[in-house]
């Protein structure tokens, strides 16, 4: 059996899963000052100083085209490793780390995938449904011409 660990985070009322091997750390916002970047793209929340390393922060809601939501006590920054760079993802909250069997992930849902490029698959588990996020895609920017 292929068991994989995932970090589960929340956006609006849905749960999303990312591969734990990509996650470097999870930070509370009160420990972090986010410095806004002038003239940066809309979905960029700013940059943080993570013990001397500069980490740009992507607002997950904005990137996924959702309504903007105020930062609360539950908001978190998930610092991930993407193509060798550390990048942060601002999410509404992080719920837990869970294990799923890879066979639970349905990668074939084409209509969801065409709607949102970042969703690589859906995890069905009993009554729950989680979206498996391809984190590299979130941080990869298509050339918009």
């Amino acid at each position, binding site marked *: 059996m292929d068991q994989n660990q995932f970090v589960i985070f929340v956006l609006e009322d849905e749960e999303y899963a990312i591969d734990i091997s990509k996650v470097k750390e999870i930070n509370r916002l009160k420990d972090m*000052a986010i*410095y*806004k*970047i*002038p*003239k*940066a*793209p809309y979905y*960029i929340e700013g*940059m943080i*100083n993570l013990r*001397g390393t*500069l980490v*740009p922060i*992507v607002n997950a809601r904005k990137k996924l085209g959702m309504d903007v939501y105020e930062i609360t006590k539950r908001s978190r920054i998930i610092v991930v490793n993407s193509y060798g*760079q550390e*990048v942060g993802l601002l999410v509404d909250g992080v719920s837990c780390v869970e294990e799923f069997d890879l066979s639970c992930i349905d990668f074939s849902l084409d209509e969801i995938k065409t709607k949102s490029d970042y969703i690589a698959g859906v995890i069905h588990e009993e009554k729950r449904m989680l979206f498996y996020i391809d984190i590299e895609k979130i*941080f*990869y*920017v*298509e*050339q918009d011409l």
Partner: protein
Amino acid sequence: MNTDGLDVEDLCLFLEETKEQIEKMEEELLKLENGQEDEESIHCIFRMVHSIKGSSAIMGFEKMTSLSHALENLLAKIREKEMHIDLSVMNISFYAVDLLREMYTNICEGTECNTYIDDILEQINHTLRQDKSHKNAKEEHPSAKEVSSTHKIEIVFDEDVEMKCIKAFQINEILSQIGTISKTTPADFIQVSDENFGDTLVMLFYTEEEDEKIYKQIHSISQLKSVSIKKLQRDTLDKMNEGEKIQENYISKEKSTIRVDINKIDKILNLVGEFITDKENLNQISLHLKKVYKNDVQIHKLLNTLSHINLIGTQLQDIVMSTRMLPLENIFKRFPRMVRDLSLKCNKEIDLIIEGSETEIDRGIIEELVDPITHLLRNAIDHGIEEKHERIQKGKKPIGNLKLSAKSEERHVVITLSDDGCGLDVNKIKRKVLEKGIATEDKLNNLSDKDILYYIFEPGFSTATKVSDISGRGVGLDVVKSNIRQLHGMIDIQTDKGKGTSFIIKLPLTLAISQALIIKEQEYTFALPVYNIIEILRIKNSYTDKRIHKVGEIEIFHWREEAIPLIRVEQYFKIDNLLPTNKASIIIVAVAERKFGFVVNKIVKEQQIVIKSIGDFVGQNKLLGNLEDISGVSILGDGTLAYIMDISSVSRNFNQ
């Protein structure tokens, strides 16, 4: 040089006298050289120099005053028989006379005096000290001759210093104990009132002592905000005295060296960077503590120690930087072959002249320069220099000239690539811009020729009418620009239609650390590199109104009889909630020979910053987008991120 308010009659009289005196000096120098009239000649020359010193000071010709002052010191030594007249003294004196004459001519013609006198001042002081060190050497240890050099010392006073002239005098006295001061700014500081003094005293100081010793001497004086000591280049001195150079080479060969893993040096550099960040933080904390515990002895001890740490920091940084420096020869040496091959291919005959390849620059920068320079060379060979028959037709020499030169300037290296080819054609560039749809005709009509030239650096632009396999490979000069930008450098063009084109690249000596002015616009913190800054003006409301003129969308600032476009940083970076600008400052910056005024709301302070690259995140297809106007980020002492403004990019984007 300011000749405003001078009486024309006075000026005429001064010019007449000075001319006579310079001629007389030359006459007497020639006599001296021929071995005639020793004593009387020296007295006469001394009188002439003394008189020029006095009259030029009255007229406000500073450079003339400094030079005659230095020469007078030299002559005084000779007159008092403390020094012999030898060939080098004669050469210096003749040279000085030539320079005085040049200045005289400049004044006559009413042109700006740009005679460069730092070299001769250094030479004179060198000779003065050398003579002394000869004496000392004979008396003491003839072998232990210390390396001596000229330092540029910059001292900033506390805001509340009273009688600044006395403070300057104290520093002057205390430094005179361990060396010679050749030049001070303000020049005749004793006469300068507190209002006119400003807060900075600059000195050229010649000594055999270590920086440490100079620093200790200066720091016995109170109320100094900062002290910076920089060694000046020794090139000129070396050229002056070949004999000594040989001796030095001999010594340096005996110096032992070790090979060190470059990773270790990089690691040290990183640590020094962190040290400097912490040091800046400590300085901030100490200033705060000083306010709270004004009367505590320990605080003053802390401040003393800290200012020493500041000095150590600067030295540490200089030393680590110097270990990373490589001469440009490392890359320059590959170009002659390349130029030869390419010119054969194009059927052109081209001479490549390389100058200043001994100029040193950080090894992190040097390798990154190969591509842009190669590109520019290819471009010059392919498009710049004409074919032989065309050159002959135009009446040019059949062989084209290509010159690649490098020189260091303060904390920068300037690399220039010039060709004597056909030059850039502004109209051709205009047509191309329109053709490619890079800009509209309306826009182009509003731009100066110089601005239009810069379009050759735009992506998708190529001046070649047909794509060749030499330079036209689908990549244009935009790549050169972005390469240079990545290195925090600037590129400028000078072109003369039919005569040739020069590309001028200005680079920082090192990538990692630089001096910047920290400014704040609401929650955003920016760092402005100080080498672009000419002047900072804090303006009161009524005053601002008078000097800022609105022409349509553009604001023009009236500054020193120039009309300078203003860029409001807040607006430019699209920061919301525009604040009323009654406390604004205007920072006058120069970039590529043009000036701009940056309007900022809050100037925090000037400090050293450690530059962190954000190159990994910036660019097409990258997370942060193009973000053209920011060349890097610095983490300040308190953890705040400051965005380093790319002034050349801002000014260009502002224009377009």
